[in-house]
């Protein structure tokens, strides 16, 4: 067991080194370092506008960086060729903040879209797997034939998660998965993420503002501030921290409500 943990530390699934991202004159990320270990759920917090989504999008490759290196699954994304990159992309799933479902496709077609592209399997298997994924994210089979415009906000999040999981990735990025959900729905979502992490052995990189999620779902928490990681560790470490923003965040009125 100890050996396993040692290996996991030596072999992070995401290794971010000294990355700097700049929009015009504003430096959003400034020499940031971050490791995400295999099999953990990392909660990523920070004040609004600190660049949480920017970091996620930089790792995924949607935002260009000025300096630094990013390794995912041990592949340096800058020096990799197209097929290596494609291979990495096939192994991660992304849940965007607004869901980003394809509006002209049904839920079923949305979930099957990555399968159709990457796997050569029969329509029957794709349909069955789609039903399995829908059941996993807690949706009824009837939802499959609906269009995204006919879904509620919570259902969109769930379908988007089902699509992110459609190829059984090793790593998922969740950008504020519980925002816009009612507390019960959000709690279910946290349980869902935990269950999936356990059953599928996922590594989860979760940007969140939800204290409940941090307490119940996350193994480790990283805090972003001033373009750097100002703290990383367990929830207990965060509560013990003397950093003013962390104190306010974890000892504020809302935080006390969660703990008690």
């Amino acid at each position, binding site marked *: 067991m100890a050996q396993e943990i040692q290996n996991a530390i030596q072999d992070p699934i995401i290794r971010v080194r000294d990355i700097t991202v700049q929009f015009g004159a504003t430096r959003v990320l400034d020499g940031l370092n971050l490791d995400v270990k295999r099999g953990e759920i990392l909660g990523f917090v920070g004040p609004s506008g600190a660049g949480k989504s920017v970091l996620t999008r930089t790792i995924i490759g949607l935002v260009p960086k000025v300096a630094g290196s990013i390794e995912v699954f041990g592949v340096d994304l800058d020096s990799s060729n197209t097929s290596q990159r494609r291979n990495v992309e096939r192994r991660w799933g992304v849940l965007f903040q607004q869901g980003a479902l*394809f*509006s*002209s496709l049904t839920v*079923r077609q949305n979930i099957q879209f990555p*399968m159709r592209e990457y*796997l*050569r*399997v*029969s329509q*029957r*298997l794709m*349909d*069955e*797997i*789609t*039903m*399995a*994924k829908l*059941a*996993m994210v807690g949706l009824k*089979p009837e939802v*499959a*034939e609906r*269009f*995204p*415009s*006919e879904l509620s906000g919570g259902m969109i999040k769930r379908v988007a998660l089902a699509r992110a*999981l459609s*190829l*059984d990735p090793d790593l998922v990025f969740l950008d504020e998965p519980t925002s816009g959900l009612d507390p019960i729905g959000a709690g279910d979502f946290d349980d869902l993420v935990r*269950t999936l992490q*356990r*059953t*599928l*052995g996922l590594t989860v990189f979760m940007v969140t503002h939800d204290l409940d999620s941090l307490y119940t779902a996350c193994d480790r928490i990283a805090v972003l501030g001033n373009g750097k990681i100002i703290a990383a560790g367990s929830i207990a470490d965060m509560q013990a921290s003397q950093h003013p923003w962390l104190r306010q965040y974890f000892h504020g009125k809302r935080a006390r409500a969660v703990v008690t």
Partner: protein
Amino acid sequence: MSGDPKLERIAKGNALALCATGTWTASFAPVLERMVADAEKLAGSPQSIFIDVSEVAKLDTFGAWLIERLRRSLTQGAVEAQIAGLSANYSSLVDEVRRVRATPVVDTTTITITGMLEQIGRAVAGIAGTVAGLVDMLGAVLAACGRVLIHPRSLRLTSTVHHLEQVCWRAVPIIVLITFLIGCIIAQQGIFHFRRFGADIFVVDMLGVLVLREIGVLLVAIMVAGRSGSAYTAELGSMKMREEIDALRTMGFDPIEVLVLPRMLALVLALPILAFLGAMAALYGGGLVAWLYGGVDPEAFLLRLRDSISIDHFIVGMVKAPVMAAVIGIVACVEGLAVQGSAESLGQHTTASVVKGIFFVIVMDGVFAIFFASIGM
């Protein structure tokens, strides 16, 4: 640790064991599916069957489902297939998959003759709806105009000027260029054919009447429908998709007054200006070709132009412009506000906006031709 997945049959006394080995994951899904389909043929054998998964190196939803599918199809009557040797890691995944119901009902739409007839019927009936929608919008815009006339301060002047810049000022270069070229082509063709009768100079009559009465305004209206009508539909449509229009309504604003009226006003002001500039550019282009290609020098061209066309031709052209602008604007705004939630719907309505806009512009042109002929202009 990992390896190609296999499913071996081992007889164990009275029972048959199917031993699954290797990596049962999405990457091997096509192979796995074939193997499972093969093993499913064992269904109905009297032996009891169990599926041994203790040697599986890696399992994901695809693998778990295929094992579950195999178990289901082998389970028949009294014989129940069992899954054996499931490691604790994967038991929750298999449990998860076990709850899944079989294949969903997928509706397949077949094309039949009655279905096609039905579509034609619906399309024809839809025309009435389209016309009603346009009349409705015309009424709403006129009512908004009325309100603005009573309270002139409620006019969104900034917005109107912004749209005027977009549809008029920024359209000038492309409109002038295209009408100039069309003028050149008309003149060249005219000279080429009239020359055989020695009637070169009549090209000026043709150019003058054609450009001022018809081509100038019609061509510009078609280009504006393509350029600005589509932009209006896309703008309003995406605002509709993001619930911005609902937001306006809840704040007590009338979307017609805030969004549609400034756009309509800008278009109604812009089209006459563009039509005039277009007509001038076409005449200039025609004159240039007549001079360089046909040998009609500019003085003779202008003299002939003054004799051959009257102010009536110019008025006929200019009167049509604002009406056509109103038609384009109304069609574009109706289509924009009809957009539903999907990106596909936005595309369809933008296409419809341009197609219907151009169609109505040409219909209006025909109506005007009859009207002006009957009043002798």
